[in-house]
């Protein structure tokens, strides 16, 4: 049997740009060993891809974890499931988190499991008082099982439901207030939903408690025409669009610097292309970090100028 990984202390995810690590890039990360030559101090993974008995994929992520902070972004827990969470899956995730000691753990405000069937998508919820109570209980269950706080991500939607009575941002704010969970603000999802459902992202942001936001996501989206109307699809298959970058700048101005992740899942570019995207996000952050950390003497320089 493989020896248990040595116990590790959690390594916090820094306020910097990171990238989602996908399989085609794993070997490059592992091969770089302790001297990562790239300007990114953290990565994010989908933990379900590493819930394997053994082999190079699991060994690889344990190796990468020795050198940098890791965030785990779950895609299968299904916080919106009416039937509650799968205790087996909670335990599988807990065991992985105990080995990896991720700096952040996140899940989605969505559902993907019903009647013990896993529907591999992040499906939309009606935002009702009943849903709010169900998701609240599920988040409590997850945080208890993990022994860790989670962040909950806003979904990308092209649908909404007739009986949704609670605006999405208020729904998220309520969850944070009632469970102590944090929020993962996916800027691309916010932009995609605002266009598809016709709402103002600035109004949405007004309802989000800044202190609860622990991470931002950026990704590309696609445009498709359906029934004569244009629809945005959150496909994570291209560079981050300019409107999303602009919205990210607004978010950072409102809530302050946060770890920012580039997600790219389809039509993956070479690693250099992915790192260049992280560079764009880092420059947005750098501009705001200077403002936040600007000591008095630099302010004086400006005054002097």
């Amino acid at each position: 049997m493989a020896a248990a990984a040595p116990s590790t202390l959690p390594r916090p995810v820094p306020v910097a740009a990171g990238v989602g690590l996908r399989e085609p890039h794993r070997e490059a990360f592992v091969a770089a060993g302790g001297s990562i030559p790239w300007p990114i101090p953290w990565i994010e993974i989908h933990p379900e891809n590493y819930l394997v008995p053994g082999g190079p994929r699991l060994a690889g992520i344990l190796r990468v974890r020795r050198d940098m902070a890791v965030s785990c972004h779950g895609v299968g827990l299904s916080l919106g499931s009416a039937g509650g969470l799968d205790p087996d899956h909670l335990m599988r995730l807990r065991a992985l988190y105990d080995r990896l000691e991720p700096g952040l753990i996140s899940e989605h405000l969505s559902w993907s499991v019903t009647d013990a069937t896993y529907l591999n998508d992040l499906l939309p919820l009606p935002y009702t008082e009943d849903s709010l109570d169900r998701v609240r209980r599920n988040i409590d269950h997850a945080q208890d099982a993990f022994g860790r706080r989670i962040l909950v991500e806003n979904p990308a939607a092209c649908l909404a439901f007739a009986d949704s009575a609670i605006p999405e941002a208020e729904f998220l704010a309520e969850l944070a207030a009632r469970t102590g969970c944090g929020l993962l603000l996916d800027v691309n999802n916010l932009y995609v939903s605002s266009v598809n459902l016709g709402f103002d992202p600035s109004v949405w942001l007004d309802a989000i408690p800044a202190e609860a936001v622990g991470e931002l996501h950026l990704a590309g989206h696609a445009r498709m025409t359906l029934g004569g109307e244009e629809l945005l699809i959150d496909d994570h298959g291209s560079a981050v669009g300019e409107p999303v970058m602009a919205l990210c700048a607004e978010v950072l101005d409102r809530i302050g610097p946060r770890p920012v992740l580039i997600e790219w899942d389809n039509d993956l570019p070479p690693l250099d292309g992915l790192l260049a995207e992280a560079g764009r996000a880092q420059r947005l952050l750098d501009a705001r970090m200077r403002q936040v950390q600007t000591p008095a003497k630099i302010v004086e320089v400006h005054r002097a100028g």
Partner: protein
Amino acid sequence: MPADAKLAGFQRDFAAYLLHGDPAVAGALRPDLPAGRLAVYRNTVMGSLAAVLGHAHPTLRRVLGSRLGEQPFTALACRFAAEAPPRLPMLWSYGAGFADWLADLEPAAEIPAWAPDLARLDWAMHEALFAADAEPLDLARLAAIPPDQAGSLRLAPHPSLRLVRSGWNIHALWKDAAATPAPLPEAVLIGRVPGDGDECGAGEVRCTRLTAADGALAAGLLAGATLNEATADGATAGADLQSLLALLLQNRLLAGFALDRPPSLTGREGNDP
């Protein structure tokens, strides 16, 4: 819990739409949004499950595709996904039943006769990649066995070791894009060979073609027969035990062994994993 029951009914309706196109859930949509947008979710679910099955069955997809085009594999994968959707949220584990499902399709003539075995080969390689890690058998311990006791050895395979026996030339179809399907009794031994480094979990999956007789012998050994029991089986006539053992040892695909005899006073002859 009527509140959860209402949400559960909604989710059941949504699932029925995603997997089978049943439109009942459309009634829950906000009326100002086109119900056609539901199709985006159905296309995502079915398309990505077909892609997952294709990723886990690259040989079957390639060989079917080269003979019939891309459409038949995708259509089969979508049918399978609708009938047997994933039970676990780890998609690497999805597709274990695909080969048997193909073999049970009615009418059988709908797919080529070699398709289920090719799917078995693909799945065995896929499983081998994610199988548990194990220290390879220490050859010195094996060498210490007295020759007169060798026949009572039982082998403990590495967790990644798989055997696929077929009536078709599945090894050639996997290895050579120019090969064409032909009836040929053979077997393929699949295992994850450890890497050269000290990383226990490193390594790559390899396939080795065996004759039908060697395949029968390997099947017996992997099922836990002693060397004597396995070679006594009539189906193994003509099998080459020495070469098979050499193959397993050279590729470090054994994790241990046991000697089938009453325990000695020291009780230290085995090396069970």
